[in-house]
């Protein structure tokens, strides 16, 4: 049991909480700041790496991920210093993946070469849309042309480049999305993420929606059609979904994100970062304060950015395993579920869901089908204890 995490591997997530502007749909822990003391942030990140390194010394690191916020606002020197410290702390897997999330503005693409020299080997770019009108409505700072240009620059420096699109936008119909998706497929190399727009509480869109002022969003029928059509088109183009919203050619999946979904261990550093660490035979959930200033203060004054840890009971681990694992098209190994929860998944429910074509068992693994992934929350509600 204590080794369950090894099925997923071990990764490091670093959160950079700043952006040039706040996008109206975004509920990530991101903030706009007038001035950022990057040297001070560097000291904090390095201190946290040291602290977690002591606890996880013996591990082989499979991945590092700079997420945000907008990590492409980090000084390349800061990124390089962090990666230097990471190399000194953990043994690294031969195929270690080091991803940085980037916004595709010209200022940021200017730093790509330096990131690459510092050790970053994969870029995940927030393209969001391929037409200017929609980019404006999404509150983005870049044009479609800038986006494409940034993408080309990224490709010249990195072997692995992915980008994100948001669809099911205001006033977007199925035909318009299909056309845009085909354009994207023509650009995509081997990986991209296609997210349906989610209206999150506490965002500008959330407030507008609550006031009834966010019009033209698709209803459930259209959203479902868009989702299923997306799956068909991408599959035909050789980039099938390996996760609910992520598509890749064989072998090009994001190793970092697979660690989450395969329920491996991950250390989380930075404001609001989450971690799961199996230590002394128990899985700990770690979390840090979300406000950047509080996190810095905690690191500087207490020597740890973490809030009190929580030991995850096995039944909670089983649920997490389920809700991460069923997102993947490869599904889950029922033996792992049994080992965590002490029971099998309910056979009768599995049979019902199977009959409805939502879940299937293939090569001893249980997976949600394409239709099943479209209603995954429902599937999980049925299966969880």
């Amino acid at each position, binding site marked *: 049991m204590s080794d369950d995490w090894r099925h997923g591997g071990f990764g490091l997530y670093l959160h950079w909480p700043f952006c040039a502007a706040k996008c109206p749909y975004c509920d990530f822990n991101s903030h706009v700041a007038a001035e950022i003391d990057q040297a001070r942030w560097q000291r904090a990140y390095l201190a946290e790496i040291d602290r977690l390194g002591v606890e996880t010394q013996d591990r082989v690191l499979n991945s590092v991920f700079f*997420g945000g916020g907008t990590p492409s606002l980090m000084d390349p020197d800061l990124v390089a210093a962090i990666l230097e410290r990471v190399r000194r702390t953990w043994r690294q897997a031969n195929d270690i993946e080091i991803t940085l999330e980037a916004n595709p503005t010209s200022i940021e693409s200017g730093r790509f070469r330096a990131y690459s020299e510092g050790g970053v080997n994969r870029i995940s770019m927030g393209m969001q849309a391929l037409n200017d009108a929609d980019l404006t409505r999404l509150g983005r700072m870049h044009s479609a042309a800038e986006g494409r240009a940034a993408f080309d620059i990224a490709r010249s420096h990195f072997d692995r480049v992915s980008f994100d699109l948001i669809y099911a936008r205001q006033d977007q119909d199925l035909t318009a999305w299909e056309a845009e998706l085909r354009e994207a497929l023509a650009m995509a190399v081997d990986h991209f993420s296609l997210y349906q727009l*989610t209206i999150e509480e506490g965002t500008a869109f959330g407030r507008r929606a609550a006031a009834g002022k966010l019009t033209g969003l698709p209803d459930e029928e259209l959203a479902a059609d868009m989702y299923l059509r997306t799956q068909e088109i991408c599959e035909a183009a050789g980039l099938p979904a390996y996760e*609910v919203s992520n598509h890749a050619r064989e072998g090009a999946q994001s190793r970092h994100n697979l660690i989450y979904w395969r329920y491996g261990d991950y250390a989380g550093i930075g404001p609001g970062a989450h*971690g799961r660490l199996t230590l002394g035979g128990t899985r700990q959930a770690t*979390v840090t304060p979300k406000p950047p200033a509080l996190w810095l203060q905690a690191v500087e004054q207490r020597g740890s950015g973490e809030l009190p840890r929580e030991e995850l009971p096995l039944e909670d681990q089983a649920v997490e395993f389920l809700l991460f694992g069923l997102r993947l098209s490869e599904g889950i190994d029922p033996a792992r579920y049994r080992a965590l929860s002490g029971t099998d998944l309910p056979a009768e429910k599995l049979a019902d869901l199977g009959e*409805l074509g939502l879940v299937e068992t293939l090569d001893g693994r249980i997976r949600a089908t394409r239709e099943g992934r*479209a209603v995954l929350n429902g599937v999980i509600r049925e299966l969880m204890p």
Partner: protein
Amino acid sequence: MTQLDHIRNFSIVAHIDHGKSTLADRLIQMTGTVAERDMKAQLLDSMDIERERGITIKANTVRIEYPAKDGETYVLNLIDTPGHVDFAYEVSRSMRAVEGSLLVVDASQGVEAQTLANVYQAIDAGHEIVPVLNKIDLPAADPDAVKANIEDVIGIDASDAIPISAKTGLGIPEVLEAIVHRLPAPKGDRDAPLKAMLVDSWYDPYLGVVVMIRVMDGVIRKGDRIKMMQTGAVYGIDKLAVLKPQMVDFPELGPGEIGVFTASIKQVRDTRVGDTITHEKKPCATPLPGFKPAQPVVFCGLFPVDANDFEALRDAIEKLALNDASFSYEMETSAALGFGFRCGFLGLLHLEVVRDRLEREYDLDLITTAPSVVFKIYMKDGEVRDLHNPADMPDLTYVDHIEEPRIKATIMVPDEYLGDVLKLCQDRRGIQLDLTYAGSRAMVVYDLPLAEVVFDFYDRLKSVTKGYASFDYQLSEYREDFLVKMSILVNDEPVDALSIMVHRDRAEARGRAMVEKLKELIPRHMFKIPIQAAIGGRVVARETLSAMRKDVTAKCYGGDATRKKKLLEKQKAGKKKMRQFGKVEIPQSAFISALKMDD
């Protein structure tokens, strides 16, 4: 022991919110009956539910000592009675225990339906009536118009009506003087054998059953051996007291007096309201006429949400029934809902009050099924069955005809809403009996099926008249009509708890409304669900709840599973609160909401 001519017994009759409780508070306060520091608003409403809803459910009594202007001190016994139709029987029996009534009318509103119903009860009981015009502090108060209104609608002399403000205390001394000088003193013979009326009884957790009495003749003392003439039971008086309004021990009570006793009586059911209490050894010759016990008219099923709570529910119901003889129950099994109870109530408010108390005082989660009235089923073999539950409807081939209870409803409403009220009554199969005007208000009397009223008639009436109508009713008779049982099938399975009795002509419309409502109330499932209303084998309405097609979190990375896990766990817990029918989960609220008609 007080001299007869120094006693006045009275009640206050009023439409809801006209100020009955506030006036009672003022009378208690101005006579110093309750110390200023113990005074609180609506003092006589002792149950939480009464205070919260601002209604009086249980009659309550207070003994007031009043030094009048003539230099004499009088004992005034006030019985506060409920104003709601459900508890009309409670009003009528309390009225028999007193000689006079204060008729309180809101001077800014005028006479309302319950003013009428209650004042007629007082007149029936032979009361002297003193009209009181309350809320004259309000700018909208129009005492002269309301006087004319009282004379017009009720037909009593209102020229001496006392203008007051129960809120500010204005006019209260005049009310106290009027009680002494305008209401009659009770009559009775101190030397005759004991004859006392059992007015009410309730369960007190410390004292056991407490019995409230009004002495007619003779004297009752602590330690006496008394006999209940109807039940024949004999008890020894353990404690004798008056209510001020808390109990104050009293050595004896004579003619005209009102008080309470305890006598090691086990449950409220052992006492009969209206029974005559006399001495075991020296009984009186003839008992008082007595009352007929209140009959439950509305029935519904109460089921625990969690089947494991059945025993707890049984316990709670038994305990409540100890204290509420007007509520009936028997065990019921439903294919859909499992084990529960079929309970009978005096009306919908009574139902709500009992359900509220079960949930609150006994911490139970309950499913309430559609309220139904008692239908009389005339079988072809001559047998007559009382049908309390539509699920028990016998096979139609053996049924000759069905009768349903009808009521005589009185509604008072401002002119401008009359059209809406007539339409509502008409839609509910009403037959107009009378329509008269008093100023700008209309009074309509309708003959209506009780079944059409028990559910949401009152709510609908309030909403179509913006709260300006008042309503009261009396049961009139059973009458034959073309009634059928309508079943609801969810995913092709009949849900017995949703079946209702309905008039054939209205079945399609009701069926359509119900399946549409259910379509909204049942959450989408992973598969599509047909929802049908059927009479016998014939489907009269159908809807299909389509399957859920999209419900997935688009972005889930960064490793924060906590929020999502909590959300799913919450939803899962919500699912567990629903009832499973085959593979379909129906939220408990649906059993009542499905029947609401937004016509």
